[in-house]
């Protein structure tokens, strides 16, 4: 059973949902506290996040730096707009690959569910072109393992 869903909505949105067997407070903290974020927001095997700045207050800065340990890497910057502990986070983010991608506006909600927490992340991109490009760059950066698997299956 897959617990996560990923779907597009309209021209500009991407919606991700996921259930967690933990309280909304714990899931919220894991999304805002640097020491916790660094443990899981990593992408493919072998990548780490040596720099994680997350100032969880309106106007607070976000900066995540990833590395593959072999000289490859990229970073993301952003700002928090709104935080409602432990139910809602609104922030903007952009990737630096090194060229800067358009702003991605992200609203993340954490709702108490019978068995834990339902997380709903709604991303809003400036337009359909940006969304397609974002999906495409997501693959170019940090998904070499998947590329290799794709190559093997062709």
């Amino acid at each position, binding site marked *: 059973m897959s617990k*996560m869903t990923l779907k597009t909505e309209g021209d500009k949105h991407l919606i991700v949902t996921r259930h967690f067997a933990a309280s909304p407070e714990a899931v919220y903290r894991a999304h805002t506290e640097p020491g916790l974020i660094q443990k899981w927001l990593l992408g493919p095997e072998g990548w780490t996040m040596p720099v994680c700045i997350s100032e969880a207050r309106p106007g607070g800065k976000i900066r995540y730096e990833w590395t593959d340990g072999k000289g490859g890497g990229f970073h993301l910057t952003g700002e928090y707009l709104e935080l409602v502990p432990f139910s809602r986070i609104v922030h903007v983010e952009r990737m630096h690959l090194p060229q800067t991608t358009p702003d991605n506006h992200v609203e993340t909600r954490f709702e108490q569910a019978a068995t834990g927490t339902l997380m709903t992340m709604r991303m809003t991109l400036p337009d*359909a072109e940006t969304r397609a490009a974002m999906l495409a760059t997501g693959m170019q950066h940090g998904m070499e393992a998947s590329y290799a698997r794709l190559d093997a299956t062709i």
Partner: protein
Amino acid sequence: MPNLDSAFSALADPTRRAILARLASGEATVMELAEPFEMTQPAISRHLKVLEGAGLIVRRVEGTKRPCRLAPNGIDAIERWLAMLREALAKNYDRLDEVLADMTIERQKDMP
């Protein structure tokens, strides 16, 4: 097999997405495609060239016409790519499950 970079840049254009949607219902000639889009045939031909280069459509020769249709492999590649993105995100969240489980244990240890 299409190149995914060129497939995604081909899909970034709304007219080309509309052409693919039209081709999903069957083969069409340049003339048939130009009509609903109110575009000139050379303009449509340029879009078709991009879609063909990206491996998303194939064309055959029928007299002076070159009708086009969807390349099943091209669409498969996009689907497969979305599946991989899903997999990468899912891996992050599986790791988060472990982080959350550790947090719960920590909390239980803190309790008197």
